């Protein structure tokens, strides 16, 4: 990416310039990309803790064999709700929040292109999640058929069923609107000279992610709509009794579900590709290749869905195709990891909290990538499928993967947002506790799965007791470490910590995007006058 020269004069104000509204109106009627981004991020943080408590209930029950705390139905509700809350409530809104904050800053735009829709897409979320979480209190309990909601099991859900489906429709609508906004903004609001291949990788990752969202969220909506009509209106899309097929649901679901995985990781790739060059003080290795790698991963994500269902009894040719296509994803993913390593090579590294999280991301996401490659081997998948090996795999990709990338991004841009440096020592403690406990939590789950422990069971045979205990200890360690994250953020927001951040925030060495040319915090309207990018 080329170095950016800008001529920004933030003192130029036109007649329409105004600050934020006062009090609650600022948030309820928010149209400012920074305010909406902040709300998204705080909402996601709250959901991260809600989903985290659910995870801790799961791990507490699994601490030792026997049922001590919860009955199996509530356990199943916890695994289901944990997934829905973390995916749709924590990870996706966090990335939308980052997109809202950073995309206009990175492309030199005054705001997002569709500010009122932006407000709407955020404010849907609190309603969607109130609805979803309220199912915990209805008769029959919250949905307990897994976040995949496979019929016929999901059709056995009580009153929670239509509620959770409506909640999913709302979340889908919200993320589609968010995605439309991102695409429209990037396509129409770039500063003069900001060609596509000069865009920062975070913006690139989001552009491609937004297309994925628009392509697959409606597929999920369609799948759950058909579940709804099967349940209430006597259709038999997924019931053999009326000529339907439960496997068809799985195909449709995973046609959404696999790209969904990349929706949660491509923006993370973007974040990491911003942070590693910054703290290596060296330009990103192979910028073009990084963009093409993201694009090819996105393309491949549409033709690999059935690797989630090797055990449904597909024809041999189908299994072969999905095995080979899935293995191919390792190539562009490998390119990304190699390029990050090459960026660090012969750099000049420092290890501030964002860099620490980014480095942990590269190491641990790669481990998740390796177990993914193992899972792609169809014959071996007949053993791995639906065991804790799979649980370990996707948690490596999502926790030290997506979640660490979000934390890295927050630690990277927080001083830019609040105008103050945060408590570095506390942030580093947060990092080390998280990085250690996340491995204590998830690494033993590989062993459990290989040794034969199925996933989604509330109780297990005694030979699995030891590793489960280790994993649960890791879970509580990781969970409590996140309280430090909350403290660091709150301190920084309230201006209680540290010195004023400079415009460049880190050092003059490297940050080179447009966001670092603005003051910290940036003016309420980002670029009143479009900067010139050369």
């Amino acid at each position, binding site marked *: 990416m080329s170095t950016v020269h800008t001529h920004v004069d933030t003192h130029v104000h036109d007649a329409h310039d105004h600050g934020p509204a006062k009090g609650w109106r600022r948030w309820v009627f928010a149209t400012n990309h920074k305010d909406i981004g902040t709300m998204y991020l705080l909402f996601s943080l709250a959901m991260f803790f809600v989903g985290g408590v659910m995870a801790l209930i799961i791990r507490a029950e699994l601490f030792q064999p026997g*049922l*001590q705390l919860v*009955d199996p*139905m509530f356990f*199943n509700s916890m695994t289901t709700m944990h997934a829905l809350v973390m995916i749709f409530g924590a990870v996706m809104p966090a990335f939308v929040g980052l997109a809202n904050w950073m995309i206009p800053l990175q492309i030199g735009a005054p705001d997002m292109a569709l500010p009122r829709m932006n407000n709407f897409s955020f404010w849907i979320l609190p309603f969607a999640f109130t609805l979803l979480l309220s199912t915990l209190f209805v008769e*029959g*309990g919250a949905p307990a058929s897994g976040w995949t909601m*496979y019929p*016929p*099991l999901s059709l056995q*859900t009580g009153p929670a069923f239509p509620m959770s489906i409506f909640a999913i429709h709302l979340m889908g609508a919200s993320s589609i609107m968010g995605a439309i906004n991102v695409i429209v903004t990037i396509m129409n609001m770039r500063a003069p000279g900001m060609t596509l291949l000069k865009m920062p990788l975070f913006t690139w990752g989001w552009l491609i992610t937004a297309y994925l969202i628009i392509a697959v969220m409606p597929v999920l909506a369609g799948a759950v709509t058909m579940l709804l009509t099967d349940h209430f209106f006597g259709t038999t899309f997924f*019931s*053999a*009794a*009326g000529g339907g097929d*439960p*496997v068809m649901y799985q195909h449709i679901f995973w046609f959404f579900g696999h790209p969904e995985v990349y929706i949660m990781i491509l923006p993370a790739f973007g974040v990491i590709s911003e942070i590693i060059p910054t703290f290596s*003080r*060296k330009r*990103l*290795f*192979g910028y073009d*290749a990084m963009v093409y790698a993201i694009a090819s991963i996105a393309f491949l994500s549409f033709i690999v869905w059935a690797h989630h269902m090797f055990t449904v*009894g597909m024809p*041999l040719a189908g299994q*072969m195709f999905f*095995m*080979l296509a899935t*293995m191919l994803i390792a*190539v562009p993913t*490998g*390119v990304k*990891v190699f390029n990050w390593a*090459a960026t660090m*090579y*012969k*750099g*000049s*590294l420092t290890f501030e909290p964002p860099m620490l999280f980014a*480095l942990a991301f590269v*190491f641990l996401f790669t481990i998740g990538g*390796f177990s993914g*490659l*193992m899972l792609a*081997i169809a*014959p*071996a998948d*007949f053993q791995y*499928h639906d065991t804790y090996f799979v649980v370990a795999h996707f948690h490596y990709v999502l926790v030290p993967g997506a979640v660490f990338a979000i934390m890295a991004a927050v630690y990277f841009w927080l001083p830019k947002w609040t105008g103050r440096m945060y408590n570095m020592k506390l942030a580093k403690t947060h990092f080390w506790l998280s990085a250690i406990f996340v491995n204590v939590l998830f690494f033993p789950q590989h062993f459990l799965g*290989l*040794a*034969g422990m*199925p996933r*989604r*069971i509330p109780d297990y*045979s*005694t*030979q699995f*007791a030891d590793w489960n205990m*280790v994993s649960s200890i890791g879970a509580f360690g990781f969970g409590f470490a996140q309280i430090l994250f909350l403290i660091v953020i709150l301190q920084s927001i309230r201006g209680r910590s540290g010195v004023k951040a400079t415009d460049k925030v880190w050092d003059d060495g490297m940050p080179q995007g447009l966001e670092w040319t603005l003051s910290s915090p940036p003016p309420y309207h980002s670029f009143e006058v479009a900067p010139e990018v050369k």
Partner: protein
Amino acid sequence: MLKILKYVAAAIAAGLPAGAAFAAWEVNMPVGVTELSREIHGLHMLIFWVCVVIAVLVFSVMIYSIVKFRRSKGAVPATWDHSTKVEVVWTVIPIAILVGMAVPAAETLIKIEDMRDSELTVKVTGYQWQWHYDYLDKGVSFFSRLDRKSDAARQLRSGIDPRTVENYLLEVDNRFVVPVDTKVRVLLTSGDVVHAWWVPEFGLKKDAFPGFITELWFRATRTGVFRGQCAELCGYDHGFMPIVVEVKSKEDFEAWLQEQQATTGTPAAQTAAAPATSQLETDAALTVARAE
């Protein structure tokens, strides 16, 4: 703290290709007792070592960079930012490795899907929450559900220590008995929701759908008792529908079969008790699965 250290030490001591299957601290997949399970285990170890080699290479470059190129050690950043040559190399080499992996994987896959020449066919039906085994054309069929001792211990706050129950959660009332060195074909279906039949020592799992038949085969090469569980979330008691297979010598199996045919007396009645899945009533599927 001491406890954690002890666990860490044990983890290291366990090493990777650990010995006896199902020992505590087990870390790896069982080699299993069928030809397919051994091939699958071989593939698993092959891809595992491939990953280890790549990991060592990539991680050592990263660790070297982290140690060597620190600003605190006065490292001056280089100015290059791409190299077409190395980028081509690390695109092409992984493709070659993948092709090398795909060939043996495809061969095993073809064997797994080869259902011909089976010597014994058993229809296995999953129900919430037990299995039903039907030896086709032999007139023997029975339900197989969680052993009562395990069932008592697994109740919420039962007060019974699971460690005092032999084969906790992995024992059934009626075992699935098969002969050794015989190609057994399992036809899977379900009476209600999706289940999955899985015995790790046999290397395979397959889903069971209501109204459809899926199939798998195995040929156990030694006698013994092998245990597994339902592997697809199937509701309240998903965690409590184990599978226990007893592999007997051919003579013992024949004797067992005859005994079953003699004692059950009315195998037809038993079969009738298991409703044909295609007749599954829609209403039944709507029942709320909250066990009382």
